[in-house]
């Protein structure tokens, strides 16, 4: 019978040092833009649409949609609003509560 071990868990001073020096704001930014791209992907899948169909509907180049989905794109509020409208989803919710 073959042995089925888990992989050895690994880290290193090089990885640790690189992670330690990352700005927490940058971490949050990358995380949010990836979550937005994942949400767009989920919406496309649930509607059975291709990236090209969304691009056509929004009169954008397909490469623009690829960029949105890459997880690297810094979205403007205008783009967010247009995607929300065309996909019928909410990507960002802002509290209407007034901060005094």
């Amino acid at each position, binding site marked *: 019978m*073959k*042995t*089925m*071990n*888990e*992989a*050895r*868990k*690994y*880290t*290193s001073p*090089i*990885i*640790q040092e*690189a*992670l330690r*020096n*990352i*700005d927490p704001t*940058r*971490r949050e930014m*990358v*995380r949010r833009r*990836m*979550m937005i*791209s*994942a949400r767009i*992907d989920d919406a496309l899948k649930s509607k059975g649409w291709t990236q090209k169909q969304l691009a056509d509907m929004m009169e954008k180049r397909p490469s623009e949609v*690829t*960029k949105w*989905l*890459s*997880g*690297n794109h810094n979205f403007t509020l205008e783009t967010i609003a247009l995607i929300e409208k065309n996909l019928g989803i909410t990507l960002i919710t802002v509290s209407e509560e007034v901060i005094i």
Partner: protein
Amino acid sequence: MKFEIVELLDFSGYKAGIYTVILNEGSQSLFDNFIQENRPKFSAEIDDILLKIETIGHVTGAREHLFKINEGTLGDGICALYDNPDKKIRLYCIRYGSTTIILGGGGYKDVRALQDDPKLKHENYLLREISRLITESIKDGDITWASDGKRLIGNLTIQDDEDNE
């Protein structure tokens, strides 16, 4: 060639198992080499790639749209993580669906085809060979997935049989 597949403690998470490779019983992984070689010059870009991997492991999983796919030969799963389409850092990896990735090396791409850059070509072709050997191990039943579908289990130290012939 002999190598060990190790799980990256800082990146593996609920959504995806994140691995790299240590060659020939060395002390550093391919992923360590990638950070060491590129971080001094491309600090912000490397930070973004590290954060992207962290988010893949814990939040999004290794969804196809987050990668440049088809960076190897047919069916070998080689793809690339990149910081930004306008910037040019490439980290080659082997992607198994959205649940498991094995990180290799990479570098700065300022050529049209990776074959035009000796460093990128070396890193990419090394990972192609690693992918081929892992595929053989999977076919032989020496490596498989744990019941969570994300973690690799089995004999994760692989020796190329051709070395002994």
